[in-house]
């Protein structure tokens, strides 16, 4: 097991190397010039050229890559072209909102989706099943920003129960922190509730009529312990897989949700940096996201061994 973990961690090194090269080249090959953007609309060609030289963008690409990768290996991700801050500082500032939004979304999605999925499977073919699956299709189909605007309209504008936008750091008060996270988390959770509920239903249906479940019922166990201990436990592997995938996919959803709710998180930082061609920031954020992807996959794989003792690495 330990050997497996070490091997998986070591395997991330070539993955990160490939990501680093691809991101670096992709940004350089994409049209757009950070120097021209920084200089502003009224700048002359000479102004743009001066800024390009100052940023080191006039150097050959190989040299630029060498400097960047050397600094990254020393733990220095460089300074943002725009923000007059180091990229590490920027990421540190933006990490909390994204982390808070992601955790709230996943917790909410899991707490709602798994019971719904189990319920739909347990009541298969009834109106309950049809309602849950109908909601599931709707959850998949409606874009995140539409859900966001609808929720804002009702709960923030019409009812004034919750704020329209913004983020409050946890240390500034738990009330404001959670109040500002409710709408974004619900918005983002809708799609994951749909995804996890469907997979839960399918997985539960595969085991709900298994011999050991029938035996448990025959022994006189009440329905709830049967569902939780015997059915859900044995249906858990695909559910955990999809939750893991969901966490990874969350990064894409966070970008839109953070924009709609004006949350200054990593998603918005990524969009702003891409639009402004802020190479050091984009490179660092993509590397960070890649590490998160790899670690989540590792965590999901390790969870399998806990849920299913037959799985060994």
């Amino acid at each position, binding site marked *: 097991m330990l050997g497996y973990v070490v091997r998986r961690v070591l395997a991330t090194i070539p993955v990160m190397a490939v990501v680093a090269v691809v991101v670096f080249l992709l940004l350089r090959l994409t049209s*757009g010039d950070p120097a021209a*953007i920084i200089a502003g*609309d009224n700048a002359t060609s000479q102004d743009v050229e001066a800024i390009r030289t100052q940023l080191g963008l006039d150097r050959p690409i190989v040299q630029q890559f060498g400097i960047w990768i050397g600094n990254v290996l020393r733990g220095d991700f460089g300074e943002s072209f725009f923000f007059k801050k180091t990229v590490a500082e920027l990421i540190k500032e*933006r990490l909390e909102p994204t982390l808070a939004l992601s955790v709230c979304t996943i917790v909410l999605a899991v707490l709602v989706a798994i019971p719904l999925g189990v319920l739909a499977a347990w009541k298969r073919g009834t109106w309950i099943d049809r309602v849950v699956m109908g909601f599931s299709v709707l959850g998949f189909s409606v874009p995140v920003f539409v859900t966001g605007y609808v929720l804002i309209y009702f709960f923030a504008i019409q009812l*004034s129960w919750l704020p329209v936008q913004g*983020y409050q750091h946890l240390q500034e008060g738990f009330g404001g922190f959670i109040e500002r996270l409710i709408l974004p988390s619900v918005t983002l959770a809708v799609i994951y509730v749909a995804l996890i509920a469907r997979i839960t239903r399918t997985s539960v249906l595969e085991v709900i009529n298994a011999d050991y479940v029938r035996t448990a019922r025959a022994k006189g166990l009440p329905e709830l312990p049967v569902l939780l201990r015997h059915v859900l436990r044995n249906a858990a592997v695909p559910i955990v897989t999809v939750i893991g995938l969901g966490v990874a996919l969350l990064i894409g959803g966070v970008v839109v949700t953070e924009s709609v709710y004006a949350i200054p998180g990593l998603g918005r930082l990524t969009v702003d940096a891409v639009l402004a061609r802020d190479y050091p920031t984009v490179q660092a954020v993509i590397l960070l996201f890649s590490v998160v992807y790899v670690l989540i996959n590792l965590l999901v794989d390790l969870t399998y061994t806990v849920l299913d003792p037959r799985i060994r690495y």
Partner: protein
Amino acid sequence: MNLRGRIALTCALLSLATVTGIAPVPALAETTLKVVMHSDLKIVDPIWTTAYIVRNHGYMVYDTLFAMDAKGEIRPQMVDKYEVSRDNLTYTMTLRDGLVWHDGKPVTAEDCVASIKRWAAKDSMGQKMMGFVKELQVVNSRTFKITLNEPTGLVLGALGKPSSNVPFMMPKRVADTDPNTQISDFTGSGPFIFRKEDWKPGDKAVYVKFAQYKPRPEPPSGLAGGKVVKVDRIEWKWIPDAQTAINALLAGEVDYLESPPHDLYPVLKQDANVKLVNGNPLGNQFTFRFNTLHKPFDNPKVRQAVFYAFSQEGFLKAVIGDPTWYKTCRSFYPCGSPLVTTKGMEGLLESNFEKARALLKEAGYDGTPIVLMQSTDLGVLTNLAPVAKDLMEKAGFKVDMQSMDWQTLVARRAKKEPPAAGGWHAFLTSWVSADILNPVMMGFMNSSCDKAMFGWPCDKEIESLRDQFARETNLAKQKAIAEAVQVRETLYPTHIPLGQWYGALAARKNIDGMIEAPVTVFWNVEKKGR
């Protein structure tokens, strides 16, 4: 309930309030104005970049020697009095008494001279002015002298220039920074102090009232006059999504939107707690820019054909829609500004396709497709290019409209390569009117070939007229020269003006005192109630 019970209840309520973040409002809470500006503040050096958001930041933190008032006239601002010698070769300027930097040190003539030098190294009008300057000399702590080689009417206009780059005054230790390096000390002497520690790019920028700021005694007028601050703190909150910004205003979470999109004005008008104000009566001008380096636009006759094919109404309708917020203006200089004129514009901008086709035939246009760059991510520009394409095709052009985001367009327009090799023929943009008030300020009129802005027009006559304008000190004669430049522009078009448009700022009803000026400024703005 007995006393112990009451105390216990009070303690419990206070604890609950603390935990949930509901704290009692202090009796003398400061007034905070929450504003959504047109862009996020990422850079904070208004000399290093020409970006408008940084210029607006500059007006918060820094002060200027001169400023343009509501009538377009240049008035002293930090300067108390100034004298011009009889030969128009020496300007002696004395600063107002009591001006101090945010760190409490007095503003000196030495600071101002250093600031002028740094600004002039970056700004095109500053460079033009410095071409006439023989010496900048400190006379005493409050007085400095500008000595010229030959007379020019540019000195006051340049020092009172309202838009990017604005000659903001900075302490000498800051102004001595290389003009191509960003400053890291944000000490100014303007009406607000920038709170660096609260600045979170991508989220908000915070300014607090500078208690020691000494406003001029005159009432505010444009960017000139007394800058009296009536709120304690201003937060520039960055909300990238326009709909969310509007929702935040409707819900009372923010007080003021600098530039809501035109298509959402009806939503704002429906709310009784919100008002729309045209804060910039001079507005903005849509412009079509040629690349004169490559065929067929290297031929002025082909460019003239475009001039004949276009009409302003179509562009304005397609983008702005509501005539309340636009007007046709057949002048290169903005309508409402001192130099506005229709001279030379007869017959132009009337969609005269027959004339356009005749000109194309005369010029021998061979059907080369025109690479027209369309910006798709800035709402106020997106619809311009399709209108241009339609009108040009009606005149006989072949048009290859290429869509891209604004930042890609900005990078591509700097390329001199032929259009088929990644270059371009034309694009459309918008200018703040305050940036194009005269032939020297108007960047697109610069026709100095390689030294000109992207598009690189090359015309000795226009350059000679711009030089004459810079040398002239008499206003009437300046106007005559500006007219001559416009007439020449109709024969050698560097760009085409496509009409004037206005943007409203949206504010809660309890916000008052907004100043009509080409730049959004926050002195005189007050917030009644909370």
